[in-house]
């Protein structure tokens, strides 16, 4: 049962209005062809959970610029003037979450935890509407789990089964998101035979991956 799918087919599974987690940090580790294809298929009303929206012409920023996104949950939009404009104009909802909290909330979703207690944000605007819990004299905020319908993952290498490896800072949110979504779609730079990636090097085990996007044939 191969997981390899054509790009169009993989992205066609995603309906308008879906909640997407998209890996990447300022575009590094964001799956470029999946973004291309979301745009080509004209998806609408997406909710995007991601670290940032990069720049207006880069990565997730392109979805914002194309007005494909209804809501963003991110830690940072400062490098994307268009996201800020849409937020201030009330065109796009933006939920800002401290980066470490965002990472833990995504992880909690994927790891079956209801949430975590973090000291980050206590006494700031981030605290609004949240439960404070004091333990041994330290105050924490209860931050709840996040889940998604789809995770769009960029990997350095995948084997035929879907075991994944990432490279350097392109790893970032990808392995966390691959745990936290109903359906996991992976764009890998290389697809290699089973066994090429040794067990200790696998960061995302194959059982988490639903769909592996076939490489574009650039030659021939």
């Amino acid at each position: 049962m191969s997981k390899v799918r054509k790009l169009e087919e993989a992205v066609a599974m995603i309906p308008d209005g879906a909640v997407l987690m998209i890996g990447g940090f300022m575009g590094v580790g964001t799956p470029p062809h999946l973004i291309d294809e979301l745009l080509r298929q004209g998806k609408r009303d997406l909710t995007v959970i991601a670290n940032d929206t990069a720049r207006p012409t880069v990565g997730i920023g392109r979805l914002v610029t194309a007005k494909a996104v209804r809501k963003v949950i991110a830690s940072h939009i400062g490098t994307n003037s268009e996201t800020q404009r849409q937020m201030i104009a009330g065109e796009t909802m933006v939920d800002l979450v401290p980066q470490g909290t965002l990472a833990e909330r995504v992880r909690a979703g994927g790891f079956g935890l209801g949430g975590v207690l973090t000291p980050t944000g206590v006494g700031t605007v981030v605290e609004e509407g949240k439960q404070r819990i004091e333990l041994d004299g330290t105050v924490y905020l209860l931050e709840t789990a996040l889940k998604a319908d789809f995770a769009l993952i960029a990997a350095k290498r995948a084997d035929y089964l879907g075991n994944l490896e990432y490279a350097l800072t392109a790893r970032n949110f990808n392995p966390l998101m691959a745990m936290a979504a109903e359906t996991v779609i992976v764009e890998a730079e290389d697809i290699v035979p089973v066994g090429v990636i040794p067990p200790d090097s696998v960061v995302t085990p194959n059982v988490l991956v639903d769909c592996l996007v076939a490489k574009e044939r650039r030659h021939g």
Partner: protein
Amino acid sequence: MDEKTLIAKRVALELRPGNLVNLGIGLPTMVAAHLPTGVNVFFQSENGIVGMAPVPEPGAENEDLSDAGGSPIGAVPGAASFDSAMSFGLIRGGHLDVTVLGGLQIDEEGRLANWMVPGKMVPGMGGAMDLVSGAKRVIVAMQHSAKGTPKIVKRCELPLTSVRRVDLIVTELAVIEPTDKGLVLREVAPGVTVADVLAQTGAELIVPSAVPTMPVGA
């Protein structure tokens, strides 16, 4: 020496061999270039690496290796890369020795505001709230005033980054240490008087009987 270089050089003196250090975007990044001789530290970039370094030469950039601003970086031998949860585990868990961050305002309780100006600038807090809450030592590296308006104030009007008291403030005029008694003036920059500092500060400063000059070379 320009003001930013002075600040970067002074901050660099706070780093100890083997420290894990996170430098914010902008002025704090300049600290890396001014490490005292013999002080080797590890720089973390919160997008997922310990051991970041400059790209050694043009053309050696790698698409999968960037800093938290998305700019290409290099890495030292012995670097380690990891996911965002681990990166913030290092920060929140007390494993990060020093974070150096810019500031918009700091108040008499040593509380920092550096992530938004309501109605004007809504960039999001990124990693700043975790860094200020979690690092063992928080150093704010900033210019003393913004267009003539003091940035060190009685009480922050801007939304706080954290209620945690920062450990040190380094500006082009002074080194100030927030303590439980208030802000203590520890050093003045070469050629700057205590009176100069007080005139440009919007908060009460505790001034010890002797205030030495910053130990930074020309």
